[in-house]
């Protein structure tokens, strides 16, 4: 495995420092849409782009931003990219935009954006920050898609809207409602942490995020 900075960042964001089960960021907004695979995909792509682009922009501006207004400027940059995404969705994918409703706007307060801006973009070059943002988004996406698979499959009997379960399948309504998302996130955390604990003591962590 190449030890270049990029690979290190990729490995970290997908596994050892995954935004959801290690950093515990970003649970807020996107969990709400995870009862549907298509919406989850679109939301997480949105988060990935917003994180990457805003990290890159903030990294480029980092020497110019005065300390006093650092947080405000960060938030303005993030809002800018999220609004851009919202405008593009409204114009080119109106039905999706309607389904996602206020949750697109909530990407702004998704802790991952702020978290990566503070932890990485502050101290690294723009291109690497872009990569860090994108890979954080990917790690985030992987976990949420896994959760969404379980929730949509058991709650609606479908995947991406295509009926998969047989006719007689009684859907698990709990999977459509809030508590299931919390339980599933905790399950993923438990699994990931147990695997990582087994792999500590020096050797490389299992880089494949097995998911489903």
């Amino acid at each position, binding site marked *: 495995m190449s030890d270049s900075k990029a690979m290190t960042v990729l490995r970290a964001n997908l596994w050892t420092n995954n935004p959801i089960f290690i950093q*515990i*960021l*970003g*649970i*807020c*907004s996107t*969990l*709400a849409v995870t009862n549907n695979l298509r919406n989850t995909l679109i939301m997480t792509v949105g988060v990935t782009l917003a994180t990457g682009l805003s990290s890159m922009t903030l990294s480029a501006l980092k020497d110019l931003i005065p300390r006093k207004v650092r*947080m*405000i400027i960060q*938030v*303005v940059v993030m*809002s*800018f990219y*999220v*609004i851009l995404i*919202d*405008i593009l969705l409204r114009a080119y994918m109106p039905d999706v935009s309607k389904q996602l*409703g*206020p949750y697109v*706007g*909530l990407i*702004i*307060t*998704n*802790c991952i954006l*702020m978290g990566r801006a503070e932890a990485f973009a502050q101290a690294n070059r723009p291109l690497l920050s872009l990569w860090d943002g994108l890979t954080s988004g990917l790690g985030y996406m992987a976990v949420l898609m896994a959760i969404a698979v379980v929730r949509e499959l058991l709650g609606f009997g479908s995947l991406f809207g295509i009926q998969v379960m047989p006719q007689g399948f009684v859907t698990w309504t*709990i999977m459509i*409602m*809030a*508590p*299931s*998302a*919390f*339980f599933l*996130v*905790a399950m993923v*955390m*438990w*699994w*990931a*942490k*147990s695997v990582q*604990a087994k792999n500590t003591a020096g050797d490389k962590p299992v880089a494949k995020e097995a998911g489903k």
Partner: protein
Amino acid sequence: MIPLINPITLFFASIFTSNILLSNFLGTCSFISISKDWKSAFGLGMAVMVVMTITTAISWLVLTYVITPLGLEYLSFIVFIVVIAAVVQILEMVIDRTSPALYLSLGIFLPLITVNCAILGAILFMQIRSYGFVQSVAFGAGSGAGWWLAMMLLSAIRERTDKSPVPAGLKGAGITIITIGFMAMAFIGFSGMIAVQ
């Protein structure tokens, strides 16, 4: 068109039947980190409730009298965030002056209220559902009260779970999230309670 929900009903519904955290998932990040200590949880909960009520009210005014007449809907997110940031900044100064002990114990979490998903979330829900002014205030206050209530309950439960034998992989955040899941289930039991629901 303004929905016909009685503000008082809306207030209670936002606390129990559609709790902004337990039903709508908003505000979980800081929730998990600060609920360990009862006193700071109480203080933060109160601060979030105050900020939510004030910002929802101000945002409604800005939305109705500035954004909509000027056709600047696409800028609403930025405007809302700036309103939140300003209110939090002022609150910080007020707390610093009146209760330095609370200011110290809240530490970094006070400015982080600005990016608390629940606050922006409440404002966005208000915008999408076209609430009137009184409804918006009731909704903001109710959502804040609901967040505070969930925070209190979680913090009380955590005092117990932190002392219990929890599997290593679940320690800390894992068991907290499971607890939140159970709380969410319990709150679903309120569903028939209020006429709105």
